[in-house]
């Protein structure tokens, strides 16, 4: 009866208990946010213990939900503590600023992300774009990127309806969904990068 699943579940649940106990004792608001990011890991691990393809299809939404809520809450924290006007130092490391690495690595990551497409590609491409943005100064095409993300979202919804109501055109659905989600996730996460400093 004590198969691999139950052993893993027991240990992961114990680590969730430890995380929740720390959350119980913590008073500082930012520490609380860090610990909540910690307790997300046991929940993802419980999904991963499922071990089928379905597990993977459940992990991806779980990951995106986690980072989305974290994004909203961190901005609420900054607003609530009145820290919006505070300047934030960028990256001042000579190796990163002067060398070619900040150009090559983002180029590789963005290219690879476009090849991957879907959620994974969106996250990888956004990581590359953020690294480029913070090592080379900020962008100012805020509205444009936001609009691209909105159009991509509409493309994804259209592909969903293609899958549901015209399943014989599944090929168009796959292509639309892959490109739509790629652009959407990448654009949203890149905007996080341009939100680094303060509003204009």
């Amino acid at each position, binding site marked *: 009866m004590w198969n691999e699943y139950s052993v893993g579940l027991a240990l992961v649940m114990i680590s969730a208990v430890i995380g929740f106990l720390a959350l119980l004792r913590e008073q500082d608001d930012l520490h609380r946010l860090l610990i909540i990011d910690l307790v997300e890991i046991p929940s993802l691990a419980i999904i991963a213990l499922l071990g089928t393809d379905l597990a993977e299809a459940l992990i991806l939404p779980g990951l995106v939900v986690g980072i989305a809520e974290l994004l909203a809450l961190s901005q609420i924290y900054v607003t609530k503590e009145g820290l919006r006007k505070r300047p934030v130092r960028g990256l*001042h*490391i*000579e*190796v*990163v600023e002067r060398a070619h*690495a900040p150009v090559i*690595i983002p180029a590789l990551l963005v290219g690879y992300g476009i090849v991957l497409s879907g959620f994974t590609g969106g996250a990888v491409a956004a990581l590359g774009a953020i690294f480029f943005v913070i090592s080379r100064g900020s962008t100012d095409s805020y509205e444009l990127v936001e609009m691209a993300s909105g159009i991509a979202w509409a493309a994804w919804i259209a592909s969903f309806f293609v899958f549901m109501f015209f399943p014989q055109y599944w090929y168009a659905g796959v292509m639309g969904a892959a490109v739509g989600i790629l652009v959407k996730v990448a654009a949203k996460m890149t905007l996080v990068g341009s939100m680094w400093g303060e509003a204009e």
Partner: protein
Amino acid sequence: MEVITTQEIAILVCAAIGVISAVRVIAERNTMKKLPFLNVLSFAIAGSLALLLPDPLTILAAAAYFVGTTLESNAIASSYAGGPKNDE
């Protein structure tokens, strides 16, 4: 005792160097003196990566790992050397 091929000897040597350098990294108390051992570690790991699977793509993975750790340790060194001074 099964026969050990040359390639296995090479990879075992790489892994042993990796473990020794990891111990040295952790035992060293001075942050700046840790970094050379970290470089040795990443050499050893990249070498054993390249020997683990005989495939052209493995070389790419090992190269990516080596580039990544070099960038990382350079960033640590530069940040450690220049970081606190800029604040004054």
